[in-house]
């Protein structure tokens, strides 16, 4: 298994290399004066020249790339003009907020999407099947930011069930002692029920928004995979053995159907990480998405670059995890590899 892990890591390296090159190219080789970007809109001409010297932007490109790599190795992603902090520490501080939100969104999407897809596949042309197909089509048609706003309008303004979309905690609660940065986990660990509920209440709508968005492809894929598996020879053979319906559906069919669903997760994650940015803006969520958006608005480009880099690295790592999960489920890949 370790050998497999090492092999997969090695395979991910060219991808990471590509990411590094692209992010470098994005800020140096594209039209415009990079020094002006990094100096910010309020900079004077002297300040821009100063930045140019400081960041070595007057050096030939390959020298700049070398510096870039060296900085990356040191974990130096530059300094943000708006916060004055190193970008890396800004991102590290805000990452848990985004991670908690995205993870919860994914759990909601899978938690509803997979059973929905299974139910739709088991009862073709029933109301469940039609619902699943409508959800799947509507889900990919809805703009995430719009869904979020709709939810806020209905559940906060009209019904008053949800709290104001003002971030991770309401005005009266304070964050729990920091262990993971995930408010739900940290408050649970500290035994602080009130904070747990407050954090959960704030999480509901944004996580639901993300969940609805990711639900569509997951439900659609599960339905398709289950339909294919249920008509396969070994399912017929299992029924010929008189195995109970539940055994057949879950132990025999679903496990096989989950394989293509797991491979879809990579694509779902790509969408989720992008949708995250939009949801964070709607709900004033203090994650890395809103960090990047705030920096963009202030024409502060270093954080944006760091953000893109971080997201890409995260995405590569998550894809690796998905790949490993697939191998854990499918013995054919594991053993034959």
């Amino acid at each position, binding site marked *: 298994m370790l050998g497999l892990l090492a092999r997969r890591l090695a395979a991910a390296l060219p*991808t*990471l290399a*590509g*990411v590094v*090159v*692209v*992010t470098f190219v*994005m*800020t140096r080789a*594209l*039209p*415009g004066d990079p020094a002006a*970007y990094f100096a910010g809109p309020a900079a004077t001409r002297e300040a821009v020249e100063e930045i140019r010297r400081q960041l070595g932007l007057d050096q030939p490109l390959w020298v700049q790339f070398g510096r870039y790599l060296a900085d990356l190795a040191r974990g130096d992603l530059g300094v943000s003009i708006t916060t004055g902090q190193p970008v890396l520490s800004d991102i590290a501080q805000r990452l848990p907020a985004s991670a908690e939100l995205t993870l919860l969104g994914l759990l909601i999407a899978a938690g509803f999407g997979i059973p929905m897809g299974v139910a739709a596949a088991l009862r073709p042309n029933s109301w469940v099947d039609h619902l699943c197909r409508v959800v799947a*089509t*509507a889900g*990919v*048609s*809805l*703009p*995430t*930011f*719009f869904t979020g*706003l*709709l939810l*806020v*309008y209905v559940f*906060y*303004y009209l019904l008053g069930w949800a709290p*104001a*979309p003002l971030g991770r905690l309401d005005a009266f609660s304070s964050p729990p002692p920091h262990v993971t940065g995930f408010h739900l986990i940290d408050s649970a660990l500290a035994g602080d029920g009130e904070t747990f509920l407050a954090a959960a209440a704030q999480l509901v709508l944004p996580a639901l928004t993300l969940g609805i968005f990711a639900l569509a492809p997951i439900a*659609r894929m599960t339905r*398709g995979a289950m339909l294919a598996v249920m008509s396969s020879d070994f399912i017929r053979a299992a029924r010929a053995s008189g195995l109970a319906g539940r055994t057949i559906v879950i132990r025999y069919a679903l496990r096989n159907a989950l394989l293509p669903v797991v491979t879809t997760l990579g694509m779902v*994650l*790509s*969408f*989720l*990480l*992008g*949708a995250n*940015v*939009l949801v964070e*803006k*709607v709900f004033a969520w203090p994650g890395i998405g809103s960090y*990047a*958006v705030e920096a*963009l*608005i202030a024409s502060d*480009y270093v954080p*944006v*670059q760091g*953000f*893109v880099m971080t*997201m*890409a690295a995260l*995405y*590569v790592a998550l894809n690796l995890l998905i790949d490993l999960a697939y191998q854990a489920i499918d013995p054919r890949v594991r053993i034959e590899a």
Partner: protein
Amino acid sequence: MSALSHARHVLAENPVTALSFCLFALLALAALAGPALVPYDPLASSDRALAPPSALHWFGTDNLGRDVFSRVVVATRLDLGMAFAAVALVFVTGTLAGVTAGFLGGWTDRVIGRLTDTIMAFPLFVLAMGLVAAAGNTVANVVYATAIINFPIYARVARTEANIRRDAGFVEAARLAGASTATVMLGEVLPNVLPIMMVQVSLTMGYAILNTAGLSFIGLGIRPPTAEWGIMVAEGAGYIVSGEWWIALFPGLALMLAVFTFNLMGDGLRDIVDPRRRT
């Protein structure tokens, strides 16, 4: 069965697809004739700010007293136009690249494959953000960025199709008749690949619309006071919590309608072109 009668047959069987074509016609009308037909000037503010929908203002007015209905209709041209430009661009480049890669194989295939893999290593919306931020916050750059992030899927589909047809009879015949590689590729393979790529166009139009709207929602691309669905939702977002729902809702619904139409149309076109791929 001719192509047209086949298409008509599928449409008759599938009223939903027929509906999507009607909706598309409606959107096209709004995009082309909208600015001439709307009751108010989309940029003209008035003192009737934040007025709810009424007979006078069908979709209400926004915080500057502008008529939301007029703005939504006029914005159709911009939103569809941007998405269409992006898709047209990627359709041409992606198809050519994919067909070349699939037909020639070898080194070309590897290079183009590496290119698509590198693009796909990023969460696509994030990449678009980064590209627009780096290249400059203009409409043109939003179009380019949207095209770039859709490149992999076009290249892949075109490559697969070209691969399948590479060794087909009619291709062999053309080759044997002495046609050059380029002629065979462009004259024989490409026309056969086009129908499937057209389906892809309809499917990604929806995605492109969402993308450009998403980028303008966070401030990239179109700037106020221009009427565009994404920034209209952004402008209306702040008023949701105080109950003025119409400012954000109508542009959002327009977005939904447009994307939905293209998705349905894409599914319908796919059924016409290649019924084996129905889900």
